[in-house]
């Protein structure tokens, strides 16, 4: 096991099991082949060919598309293809910042293989012994990756919320970080990946922030999503990343990016270039 395995885990290069789908001629997502075939049952919404899937052109507004695709998502839930329903809408656009083409229930996002966005915060303190990173452990009842190690603050980006507003909201809920402190978080880049996750294609872009915290600050979870927080040296963090899958799959690349940017990993680190290239999926 090595650090670079944590990145490769979040990388899907063989797309042969998926079919692209488009809205108004713009590629919007990737469907597993069996899901694409299932969409033939909804000919008023989707036009399915052996190569591509497209939304029927009469669905020519945001609201029409949202309603029609939402109904299909409900049907896929009843068929057991979509798992769970979170009543949380994600905006779907061809690219970040483009006008959204429709909204989609969060639980259906991986089934439709559309891009989703999130915000991750590296909470750290500077000590005489060097930088230390706050690491959370996810509660055992979380639907995704229970018990895994996590950033101090992380969350999906619901439709309509800008990344900083979302960060402030999540910082309060997940770590009892006040808005004044949360606003000091600095954007430091983004990672994006395309991976196979529970049988579907996840295509996530995470906006990454660094937040330097006072040495005497201790995060406290208020929404039950994090079991506990620990302050770890970067050597300890690196050792855990190298030797285990204890970090949540998409938190590991965020933390590796932190280790790179803060000079904790150097050119002597095995696979340094691949680690520093990071995850940059289209």
């Amino acid at each position: 096991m090595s650090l670079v395995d944590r990145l490769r885990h979040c990388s899907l290069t063989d797309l042969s099991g998926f079919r692209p789908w488009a809205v108004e001629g713009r590629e919007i997502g990737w469907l597993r082949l069996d899901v694409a075939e299932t969409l033939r049952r909804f000919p008023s919404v989707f036009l399915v060919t052996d190569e591509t899937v497209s939304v029927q052109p009469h669905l020519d507004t945001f609201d029409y598309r949202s309603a029609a695709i939402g109904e299909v998502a409900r049907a896929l839930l009843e068929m057991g293809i979509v798992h769970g329903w979170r009543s949380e809408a994600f905006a779907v656009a061809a690219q970040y910042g483009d006008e959204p083409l429709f909204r989609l229930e969060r639980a259906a996002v991986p089934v439709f293989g559309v891009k989703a966005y999130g915000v991750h915060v590296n909470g750290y303190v500077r000590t005489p012994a060097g930088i230390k990173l706050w690491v959370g452990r996810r509660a055992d009842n979380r639907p995704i990756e229970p018990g895994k190690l996590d950033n101090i603050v992380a969350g999906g980006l619901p439709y309509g919320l800008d990344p900083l507003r979302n960060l402030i909201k999540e910082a309060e809920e997940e770590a009892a970080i006040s808005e004044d402190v949360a606003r000091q978080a600095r954007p430091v880049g983004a990672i994006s990946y395309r991976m196979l996750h529970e049988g579907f294609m996840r295509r996530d872009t995470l906006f990454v922030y660094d937040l330097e915290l006072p040495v005497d600050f201790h995060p406290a979870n208020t929404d039950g999503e994090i079991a506990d927080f620990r302050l770890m040296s970067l050597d300890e963090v690196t050792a855990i990343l190298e030797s285990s899958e204890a970090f949540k799959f998409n938190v590991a690349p965020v933390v590796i990016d932190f280790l790179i940017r803060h000079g904790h990993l150097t050119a002597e680190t095995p696979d340094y270039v691949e680690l520093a290239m990071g995850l940059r999926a289209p």
Partner: protein
Amino acid sequence: MRSTDNNNDVKSRVVKRAASPEIRPSRRRSSPQSPPSLLRQLQRYAPVDYRRYLRFLIGDQHVGWVRRDFAPHLADFPTTFVLNADDVSLHPALVSVDARSEAMAAVLTELHGRGLVPGWRGELYPVGRGFDQPCLMRMERAATPLFGVLSYGVNVNGLVRRDDGLQVWIGRRSPHKQVDPNMLDLLAGGGQPLGISLADNVVKECWEEAGVPAEIARQAQPVSIITLQIEAAEGLRVGLQFNYDLFLPRDFQPRNTDGEVAEFMLLPVTAMMAQLRTTDDFMYDIALAKIDLLIRHGLIGPSEPDYLALVAGLRHPIAFDPT
């Protein structure tokens, strides 16, 4: 969330089961106030048209690209090169690193005599498929763009923390430099030849270009990499550069010792950003390193136009064929 202005377009069809019906699309606008995009820097060169090139192979390893109109010169050396329709490879009889390097050196000396290898440097660069991959051959630095091989370099951002914000040391290149005279550069940086570690090269360049004492230069921290693939005047530049941040004392004044830098200026990072938005005064690769600096230090964020395109554009994978 920005308000919507197209509710009037929504037809009166009943929208059933739509989650969060209060949510409406926002429309992306480029207002007159929005600053010019930093993407201008990434767009200074057209994307490389690889159809104009033959792949350059050592054994079965793809390590570079030779312009089709340069290949006829290589045909004069049939014991060194084998030319095919879509690739040019080193002669299979050249099996060792030393044999390849000697044969290539002899060819380049001859081509240099014909005026085809401008700017001979007398520095050897490794040729291979990546930084942590085996060196398959050594090659004169000036010839690397002729063969489109991957070369490496180090960039040192000279930074000063002040109460009113981050400041950046910028160098203006000497008017006598062979490449990019008079253009804006960073505190120190340079190509990465064989036989010296990145960290030692940082210390060496910091001293030669900016007079930074070794004990300060050693505090430079590796922070990121950038890649470039451009058709420059000297040929196809395929580069991977290692970026370092070096925080300098407020009273430190860089001074050039090798005649390569005309002057140094300490600029507020915001002034540097304004220059990147509106001018091409920075060398291309340095502009990339500076955009990387702006991203890492939070001077721009997700609300910056083209933020994700900038993040992705700094580190395009090198397009070698897979092995």
